[in-house]
């Protein structure tokens, strides 16, 4: 899950090292009950499946877009439907490239030596790393802040290691948590289950009512907002309001106000969900920030791994603003 940025040459060397050391998993391509026999989908967290993803529109976000060819192939599977005729979103959608890449660890043949394969950082941040961090703040699809907020966001982004509330075990909340890891859909509601990836909220859930109700105005603002959903054709459209205002939208200092309003859309075709969020914030944004990613269905038996609780110990030992 936590693959590190490394240059090409060590990457190949690493890949070779991994392949030589990691035993091929038994039953990696189990197709029990899976209708789709011709597409290799392997986004299970427990299996040694490679996953390549990217940030094609330059959002600076860690949710990766799978390669186009893989999306096209996965779309060819039949689309399951609910009794009411709508697409069934139920499934394990693997956290869209949060980095659930190949298990990098290895064990020697005699079983006595185990490596995690995490590359050493060295005394200071590498040039490559600095460049990558800079790119993250200069992408084409960054949050569209009004001019008066740009400086502050830049400062927060550059000083993330001291400023990010998630570093101090505050929940990431929605939409920073990203696309759902797993969806369970029943007639009156759709449940989104998340592996929040090292975040303090561990494994979070969202319940999206789809029985036609409106928002409950009596609810307190929350980290995950108040979600109501309805169908527009084959697209589930979820309206999310009533957020607390002290979460970030990304690791790059992307603050928001209490006016934030998110519309989240999910459309399933075959084994792919086209997931789109439109984040509006009339106080801070000049226009909605729209992010689209494709989620590919994972292995039949995949579920979000239980995430560990958060305890903060590092803050008092930080000596600089190096970011991850």
């Amino acid at each position, binding site marked *: 899950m936590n693959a590190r940025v490394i240059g090409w040459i060590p990457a190949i060397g690493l890949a070779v090292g991994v392949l030589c050391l990691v035993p091929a998993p038994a039953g990696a391509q189990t197709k029990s009950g899976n209708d789709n026999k011709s597409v290799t989908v392997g986004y299970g967290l427990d299996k040694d499946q490679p996953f390549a993803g990217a940030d094609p529109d330059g959002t600076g976000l860690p949710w990766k877009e799978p390669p186009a060819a893989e999306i096209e192939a996965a779309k060819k599977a039949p689309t399951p439907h609910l009794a009411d005729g709508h697409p069934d979103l139920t499934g394990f959608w693997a956290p869209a490239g949060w980095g659930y890449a190949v298990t990098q660890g290895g064990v020697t043949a005699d079983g006595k030596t185990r490596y995690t394969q995490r590359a050493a950082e060295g005394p200071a941040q590498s040039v490559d790393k600095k460049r990558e961090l800079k790119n993250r703040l200069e992408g084409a699809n960054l949050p569209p802040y009004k001019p008066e907020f740009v400086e502050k966001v830049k400062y927060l982004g550059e000083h993330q290691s001291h400023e990010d509330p998630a570093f101090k*075990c505050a929940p990431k909340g929605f939409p920073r948590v990203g696309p759902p890891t797993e969806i369970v859909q*029943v007639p009156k509601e759709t*449940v989104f*289950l998340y592996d929040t990836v090292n975040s303090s909220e561990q494994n*979070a859930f969202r319940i999206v009512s789809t029985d036609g109700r409106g928002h409950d105005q009596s609810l307190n603002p929350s980290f995950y907002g108040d979600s109501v959903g309805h169908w527009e054709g084959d697209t589930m459209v979820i309206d999310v309001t009533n957020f607390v205002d002290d979460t970030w939208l990304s690791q790059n200092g992307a603050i928001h106000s209490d006016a934030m309003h998110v519309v989240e859309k999910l459309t399933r075709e075959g084994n792919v969900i086209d997931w789109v969020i439109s984040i509006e914030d009339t106080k801070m944004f000049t226009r909605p920030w729209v992010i689209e990613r494709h989620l590919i269905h994972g292995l039949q038996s995949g579920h979000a791994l*239980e995430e560990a*609780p958060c305890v903060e110990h590092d803050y008092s030992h930080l000596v600089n603003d190096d970011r991850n």
Partner: protein
Amino acid sequence: MKKRWGFCLAAAVAAVGMLCMASGLAAQESGSQPAQPAKSKQQALPPGGPAPRAADGHPDLSGVWFGGTAGGFTYNPALRRQFDAKAEEAPQFQPSAAAKIKAMTQTDYELGRASVNCLPRGVPGMFLINPYPFQIVQTPGLFVQLDELNNNFRVVHTDGRAHNPDPDPAFDGDEVAHWDGDTLVIDTISIDERTWNNFTGWFHSDQEHVIERVTRPSLNYLTVQVTIEDPKVLAKPWTSTPRVWTLGHEDLLEYYCTNNQEVEQYKALKDKESGGKK
């Protein structure tokens, strides 16, 4: 950042609030009454008819469930009561475990609570020591439990599969389930050692094996009976009396525990209590 002090104060207030509420709950179980708001019109729910059935014929356990008989939040201790404390056997501890528990202080008890330390309540704490509601979503093959407390969830396969041969410890353990007539039997091993089975120090070992028997005898009622085996901590297996939950008609609220930002404060509290020694 200035929010940090806000969190600090809020966490401290929350902690004190939790401690007060926690002691209120503990007091409730021992018989004394916490202060109540204006009169409650709630009463115990009737059975309400037969339990709904899923397509496969099993009872459908789905619903939002509140502990006790009121089908909703209540301060009324009679309606909060989930089991007959007099009828339930006390756990019999191994001497070493009993000694360890005896040495614990009230602060240790508070620091062991999920709502204070922000750890998940885990298995079987979610059924045994949980004053907050949860929602069950049952689909063919899956039992999904959404816990209001700390917003955690568990997903359990109900197809009778075997345990993972090499599980990692988890707060919800390695859990599998099967139907035994109308009862869903959830079998769990490999539970993270940080969970407790009561509010007064009942810790467990890596050998703990939990069996939760869940059934829905009527529309409005869910009963859960828990058996715990733990040869390193218990002298013999322990089984609860059936614990009662009733069907609510409201949604879960968001509950995120953020007290874990102030771990050092709790440590200081503990150190002070033990006179500076750990």
